[in-house]
């Protein structure tokens, strides 16, 4: 067992390729940059960011929201893999779950970074304001989802390391739990925002389905890119069929997402109550403040273009266009759900003040650091899992030894 762990670690950190070390070094460099900025923020206070009382949540929470979506998107692989037994996807669901793990870890990091007194975060466990506070719910469901995915990945890897077929008896409960759980991390995160009467922009029940729909677009799109890179840099075989199937699913979810988006936009502009101001700010600018306007239109344009590319089978099955569409939809959803959702919640503020928030360099550096952490985690996990997955690395059990002899 000890040897096996040693082997795993060796697999993770040792490679014949120089590029691998370069990649690791690059990530560590980014993490270092972020860490320096975070140290500054930790010692001086959140004043180093552009956040103020008027806009108290910003770039960190925007990234958090986007990443929750990425995490939940593992379910897009789990459903076809385990419920519909679609074989090509079943083979890669493991790597999808790893994306979920990295995303959740990044989410937790971002929330901790966003706190004014992160050291005292243990108070949540001591006197949780449960069930009233949605933040407590969010802590529970995010950690739960992390555990579910860690359990699923480690069980499958464990069985693979023993050269055994995993048993569906063990997987079923995990799968059955993970599907509603993935939906729930989204619903709860949506409620985190839409439960607030003070923020009319968020205060609509459509936020939850929209969250789910947009998550199911951006997450799989990100996975599509990761899988393509993965099969380039490693020997792992990810079939085109699986990729095209995921792309097809993205087309459906994008249709959903756009439908819901249209419903919300139409409703908001149509009702034209005083609560329309944030929408106006997003799309047309408010009282001369229009720093989000180009982003909003860009996101809309990206989403629509990507939808068309995903919808047409010809472009969907053509890798250059597919990849372009993936990037478009990721950027589109990142804007729409990150800054497009979090910032206007505070603009105009509860007393009508407009504080045109944009993240400053420190925030961006810290966030890049967090993304680099996630990428590093994924790289290491992937690098460790590959030899087990391909059968190069096996645990030395008596039974296996016998077989080998």
């Amino acid at each position: 067992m000890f040897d096996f762990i040693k082997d795993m670690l060796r697999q993770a950190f040792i490679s014949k390729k120089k590029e691998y070390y370069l990649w690791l070094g690059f990530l560590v460099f980014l993490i270092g940059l972020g860490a320096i900025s975070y140290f500054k923020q930790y010692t001086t206070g959140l004043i180093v960011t552009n956040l103020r009382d008027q806009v108290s949540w910003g770039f960190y929470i925007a990234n958090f929201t986007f990443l929750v979506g990425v995490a939940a998107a593992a379910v897009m692989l789990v459903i076809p893999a385990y419920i519909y037994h679609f074989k090509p996807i079943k083979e890669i669901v493991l790597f999808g779950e790893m994306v979920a793990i990295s995303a959740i870890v990044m989410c937790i990091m971002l929330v901790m970074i966003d706190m004014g007194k992160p050291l005292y975060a243990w108070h949540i466990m001591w006197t949780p304001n449960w069930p009233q506070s949605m933040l407590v719910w969010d802590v529970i469901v995010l950690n739960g989802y992390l555990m579910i995915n860690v359990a699923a990945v480690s069980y499958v890897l464990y069985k693979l390391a023993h050269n055994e077929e995993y048993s569906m008896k063990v997987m079923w409960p995990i799968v059955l739990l993970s599907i509603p759980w993935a939906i729930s991390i989204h619903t709860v995160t949506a409620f985190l925002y839409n439960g607030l009467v003070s923020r009319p922009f968020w205060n609509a029940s459509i936020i939850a389905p929209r969250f789910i729909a947009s998550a199911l677009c951006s997450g799989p799109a990100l996975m599509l890119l990761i899988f393509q890179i993965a099969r380039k840099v490693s020997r792992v075989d990810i079939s085109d069929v699986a990729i095209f199937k995921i792309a097809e699913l993205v087309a459906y979810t994008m249709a959903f997402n756009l439908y819901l988006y249209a419903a919300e936009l139409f409703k908001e502009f149509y009702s034209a109550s005083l609560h329309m101001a944030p929408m106006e700010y997003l799309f047309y600018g408010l009282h001369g403040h229009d720093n989000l306007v180009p982003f909003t239109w860009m996101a809309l344009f990206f989403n629509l273009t990507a939808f068309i590319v995903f919808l047409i089978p010809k472009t969907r099955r053509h890798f250059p266009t597919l990849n372009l569409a993936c990037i478009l939809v990721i950027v589109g959803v990142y804007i729409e759900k990150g800054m497009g959702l979090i910032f206007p919640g505070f603009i105009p503020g509860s007393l009508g003040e407009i504080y045109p928030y944009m993240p400053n360099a420190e925030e961006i550096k810290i966030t890049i650091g967090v993304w680099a952490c996630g990428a590093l985690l994924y790289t290491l996990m992937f690098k460790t899992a590959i030899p087990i997955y391909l059968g190069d690395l096996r645990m030395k059990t008596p039974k296996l030894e016998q077989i080998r002899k």
Partner: protein
Amino acid sequence: MSEPIEGHLVHGAIWTIKELYTYPNEYLYWTVHIVIYPFLTGLVAGAFVLSSLYHVFGKNELRPVSKFALVFSLALLIMAPTPLLFHLTKPWRALNTMLTPHFYSAISAFIFVYLTYMSIVVAEVWFVFRPFIVQQAREKTGYLGLLYKVLTLGSYDVSERALALDHKISKILAAVGIPAAALLHGYVGFIFGSVKTVPLWKTPLMPFIFLMSAVISGLAICIATYIAVMTFKKTYICLTTVRSMGKTLTLFLIIAFLLESLDIVFHAYTAEEFWAILSEIIFHRFSVNILVLQWGLGMIVPLVLLLIPNAGLIRSFVASCLVVFGVFMMRWDVVIGGQSMSRSLAGFMKFKMPILPTSIDAFREGLIVVIFLLVMPFVLLYVFNKVLPVFRDIFTEEECEIHTKEISRKEAHT
């Protein structure tokens, strides 16, 4: 106008009972017809989606119901706007919506969305049944023959190439029809969602909620009608077809259930000013309607029935009927329940449906008309069935077995 009329009854006063403080002008102005109208429109959308499942998504086991679902959706579609005509106090002015449409109004868009959708459905029906029509036009004589000849629209080409083209076109139409159905019904939801004064309605989720409940009601009524007609005709029913429909129904039922509960949970959590009166409606005044009939009988019971494996004909039939009933109750609760809360948030209104047609108003909004509206689609289906072979294209036992095997092979293959 001359002398004021003693005790003149105002529109709405016959069926409205006021409680506590409501505004003096407040009556239930939208009643049963606004219940039936989205209900029928929803059935259309659902039935059309069912037929598209075969035409677009290649669910071959649904072939026996695809034509029936298509024709049924046409029958329902024809009836869909009639409740609106009964509802209008000036029905003969309905054409005004086309003469001077005011596009910011959700209702004015109806006629256009409706016509678009109608043209899609009619065109698809024509393409699907064209070989049959051509054959009949060549064989039949007399009035019926003339009818078929008119129906061919002068096109007698039934060569292989033409038929392949037909098939392709009907597939495209079916595919276009899905977003059109989503638009049609989403827009019906929007009629309610855009009314900002009614707390129960004013959610941007309304189009989506309506769309999902529309799909489940349409699927369910097709299942129920199909089973009923086939049993009545003593024809063999392929269980695989029924189960496949049941599976789709289950999926949409779950989504619909989640969406509806999501909205209620949302209101309960945010607890804005109107939640006091809304919770009074949900948990007291309409508790039987909403909690027992709409959610319990209409969603949870059928969901359980459908989720238990190996559903038979009777179980599917019962579950489908319950779903249709549940969706009807949902429309009822949304329309009547939503308006029962006074806009003053300090009073309630009760709806008492006029049974006997004691006056014109009582007749128009009364029970007789309601029954007429709900029966008419089936009558139309009967008429269509006389002209077109709606139920003829069914599986024999061998075919059924082939499809059953194919499906089980698909599952085993993975």
